[in-house]
């Protein structure tokens, strides 16, 4: 997460407003869920990007979209576009190198080096500009799909 001091003051104010909203809308849980995960060397890992990436043929993310899109691990990066609504983040590095927002090559390298157990055949993408408390159903659905894929760990990559 960028430092607030490096943002335009009005953008920083917007971020603080979003954080306050998140705090006000926090969910109630009966218990704090915490598990000790499998060792990384045995874990299959999936990426969840908030960059609104999707395949060119998939439905584009619409403003306020709470859905998700699937990104195969072996996707040709040329097939991905981004429907994120914000103009206030840096796209130049993503335009040079997809791994800046979706590190699929880096994950493959960690798996080949034996540092992680494997990489999910499918990754997930959402539109991070949508308020996070609206994602409860999508979160549950992604969790089910991760379970069905045999994924041990999901790594959220916020843009």
């Amino acid at each position, binding site marked *: *997460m960028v430092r607030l001091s490096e943002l335009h003051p009005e953008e920083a104010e917007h971020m603080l407003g979003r954080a306050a909203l998140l705090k006000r809308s926090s969910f109630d849980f009966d218990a704090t869920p*915490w598990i000790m995960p499998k060792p990384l060397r045995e874990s299959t890992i999936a990426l969840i990007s908030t960059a609104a990436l999707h395949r060119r043929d998939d439905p584009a993310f619409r403003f306020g979209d709470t859905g998700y899109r699937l990104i195969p691990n072996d996707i040709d990066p040329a097939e991905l576009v981004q429907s994120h609504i914000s103009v206030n*983040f840096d796209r*130049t590095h993503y335009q040079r190198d997809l791994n800046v927002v979706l590190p699929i090559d880096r994950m493959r390298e960690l798996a080949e080096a034996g540092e992680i157990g494997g990489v999910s055949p499918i990754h997930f993408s959402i539109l991070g500009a949508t308020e996070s408390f609206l994602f409860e159903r999508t979160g549950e659905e992604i969790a089910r799909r991760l379970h069905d894929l045999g994924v041990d760990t999901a*790594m959220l990559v916020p843009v």
Partner: protein
Amino acid sequence: MPFPLGRPLGVADDPAFQRDVLRSALKLLESATEPTIVDYPNEAPDANGEGVWACAIELPTPEMSELESAVRSEIDLLMPRYQEARRSRGRSTFGMSGATIDQVDKVVSFAIAVAEGSGFEDVPSAASGPNWRHAMPILVRFVVEDLRALYQEAVTSDASSRPPSQREMHTWIFQETALGQLLKQIAQQITDHDDPRLRLMRGFIIPEGFWDGDRAFGGVPAGMSPDDYVRSIRPYLIGEQS
């Protein structure tokens, strides 16, 4: 991760640094015993280098009176670099609007028509052809993004030169290009429009600090939170409600 917005892995084309960011995050799984926040200790490699970034492609000084020809001239000058970037990277992010790069002529026609007052209800008649992926009015925002993608990918095509920071890129577009003048003219059409709900879209086109007027995200009624306001007008902006 103390990196600029839009760069969660820090920097392009630096696999070693990107792997270190990933490792640092993943290793928390083996050390944390409760929900934990840890700051990543390293700054992104100084991809922006020393000095001030300047576009290596010299564009003619744009004139508002001939905005369309100025934008088309810029695109003619930039297209060889764009195609080079597309070839060397094996990809392009152009296409968010639904247009393909060989339909860029229609993308320009679209943006020019909106800037000259065609309105925000219907796709301009001069822009028929592409399989537009969004409805009006939010389609305008993605048409703009495609033009920006073309410009940005073109001027960063030289992998050996340092890339601009986000602010340098915004500054170049809005202060030195005809595209920037075109975007400001679209923003003015939004500002002058009768429907204040449209005002929010200006903030998706003009970054904070580049609009000489009220805030880039204008139009939030007094006493209403920005998020509540955004939720209330989304159906209008995505074309589901008139």
